[in-house]
């Protein structure tokens, strides 16, 4: 790695647009608009973090290249164009039917394989702390394992010195300042930054000279019989709708009676939302 150059990879994910989120809790139906994708908000902040480092680097005459990396169906290319519109230097789409259905373990494996094969000089990997669709918060830490990078999760701010990254975060009620040497991986917490809006010149530019590389399973030299869905250690047994299980329950009677009933039958839901364990009686 040249001393004055830093390659940053930002992992971004295309997620269903929340405002159109196609679930009607009363009728229990999933709707087609799932196809409408957007850049996951936490990924967007990871990109913002990368772009801020890129800008700061320019001031210090340091070349910081930002590559947006995603894995998904061909239509996920859209979020890469958005990333380039916002200021990323390149976009990379990992797409192949064999990669479909990967759980976090295999997702991190594929992302890591790409980085090792094609971007071995990567100095910093940034991810959203958790994506808005699955919220597992697992891919970041697992990718760090895959790359054997030190990693810090839930960052609310990052600063770069010559070879050290300084991260601020608020976790489990502790405000912490952490440091690590690069290469490393950081996941960015929602709310860490106010992300920029893409300028329309940036959008036009992104399409005028496309900077998207599309990589399939062959280029990653995955095994011929690689199948992310089959190879994932977890399996979805079935899926059901929480709402169709229960009808609207009507409670009648004196205030004391209905309150007692409420806590007897639904105390767990309330205590879970409070994050506290309530006494049964």
């Amino acid at each position, binding site marked *: 790695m040249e001393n004055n150059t830093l390659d940053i990879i930002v992992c971004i994910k295309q997620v269903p647009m929340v405002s159109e989120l196609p679930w009607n809790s009363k009728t229990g139906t999933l709707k087609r608009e799932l196809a409408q994708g*957007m850049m996951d908000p936490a990924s967007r902040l990871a990109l913002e973090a990368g772009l801020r480092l890129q800008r700061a680097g320019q001031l210090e005459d340091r070349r910081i290249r930002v590559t947006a990396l995603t894995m998904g169906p061909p239509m996920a*290319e*859209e979020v890469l*164009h*958005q990333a380039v*519109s916002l200021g990323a230097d390149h976009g990379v789409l990992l797409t192949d039917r064999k990669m479909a259905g990967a759980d976090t373990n295999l997702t991190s494996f594929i992302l890591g394989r790409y980085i090792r094969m094609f971007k071995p000089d990567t100095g910093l990997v940034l991810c959203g702390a958790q994506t808005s669709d699955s919220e597992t918060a697992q891919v970041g830490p697992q990718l760090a394992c895959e790359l054997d990078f030190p990693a810090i999760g839930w960052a609310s701010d990052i600063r770069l010195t010559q070879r050290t990254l300084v991260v601020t975060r608020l976790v489990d009620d502790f405000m912490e300042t952490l440091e690590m040497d690069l290469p490393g991986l950081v996941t960015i917490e929602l709310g860490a930054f106010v992300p920029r*809006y*893409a*300028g*329309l*010149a940036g*959008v*036009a*530019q*992104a*399409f*005028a000279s496309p900077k998207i590389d599309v990589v399939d399973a062959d280029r990653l030299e995955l095994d011929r019989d690689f199948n992310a869905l089959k190879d994932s250690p977890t399996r979805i047994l079935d899926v059901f709708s929480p709402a169709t299980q229960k009808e609207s329950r009507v409670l009648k009677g004196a205030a004391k009676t209905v309150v007692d009933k409420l806590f007897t039958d639904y105390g767990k839901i309330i205590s879970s939302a409070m994050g506290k364990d309530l006494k049964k009686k």
Partner: protein
Amino acid sequence: MDFNPCMKHQVVRKTVREFAENEIGPHAASLDREGRFPTEIIEKMGPLNYFGLQVPPSLGGAGLDTISYAIVIEELSRVCAALGLCVSVHNSVGLYPILRFGTDEQIARFVPDMAAGKHIGAFCLTEANAGSDAGGVETVAIKTDDGYTINGTKIFVTNGGVCDVVLVFAVDAGSQGPSRSNVFIVEKKCPGFSVGEIEDLCGMRANPVSSLFFENCRIPETNLLGKPGQGLKIGLTALDTGRIGIAAQALGIAQAAFEAALSYAKERRQFNSPLTKFQTIQNYLADMATSIESSRLLLYRAAAAKDKGGDFGAQSAMAKLSCSATARTVTDLAVQIHGGYGYSREYDVERYFREAKVTQIYEGTSEVQKMVIARHLITRPS
């Protein structure tokens, strides 16, 4: 023929929608109520190239194609038609004629600041006795030794209250016929230029539509746009382009009204059923959606035709005629579906309803669009 939007146009749409919904949407109703032009939002839009949509990047613009331009106006207007109007007028009739007909010097002098949103553009043709009939213009420009002196009053000037640069359509008092008209670039600082009261309009209330006064307004010779006598040509070219913007604006209003009506119809219950269970309402929704989709196709076709070059006047007139009619019927039905709530200021459809009407009036009334279309049909070699 591919009717699917390409990825670029999808990204343009999402980019604008995100900005508009976050930064403009929360204020749209109060801006309308207060009749306030949101300078603070304009300042955010400038660096994002909203004021140089089709200006080349070398001059600080976005360099977008015309379909993208239409999508930008549509998405802005879906959230706040008054701001969509500001951006459309600035880009299409304020800025575009300078790019198209201006000298290199004029382009260098005016375009970068306009494209950056630092200077807002406007265009004025309409007068007390001239609107659809450009021949009735009474604002006169007299050639002097070192420039021109303009006298007259323009009315209903979109962006009038905030414009820094305005294209003024004026006639040469001494001559007759179509070649007696010229378009001048008047700057706010020109002596003898002043702004009248902001109009108290039915809709588009956040746009400072006003009269402009020219009293011995002196402008340098270098502010004549195009060649002497080219005024009508410039004016008509500007309007051809402007129509695409207003058509897009009308479409955005219709889209917003449709979305509001659809979501209301799904939630609102009468006779123990959501409104969507009633066939009458279903028919309304089907009509609205069909009308919007057909207008949208006409609009994008006109926009694509403009980029191909050649005459797109009839197509843009059809697009505007269709989109503005759609806006009227769709907002009307949206209010109807909302019932009493739709007539209340608490609901956005009331605003859409007021906003839609003017799209049939400005940048050429629907009647004028039909004239343009008919003239094209009749004069076209068969």
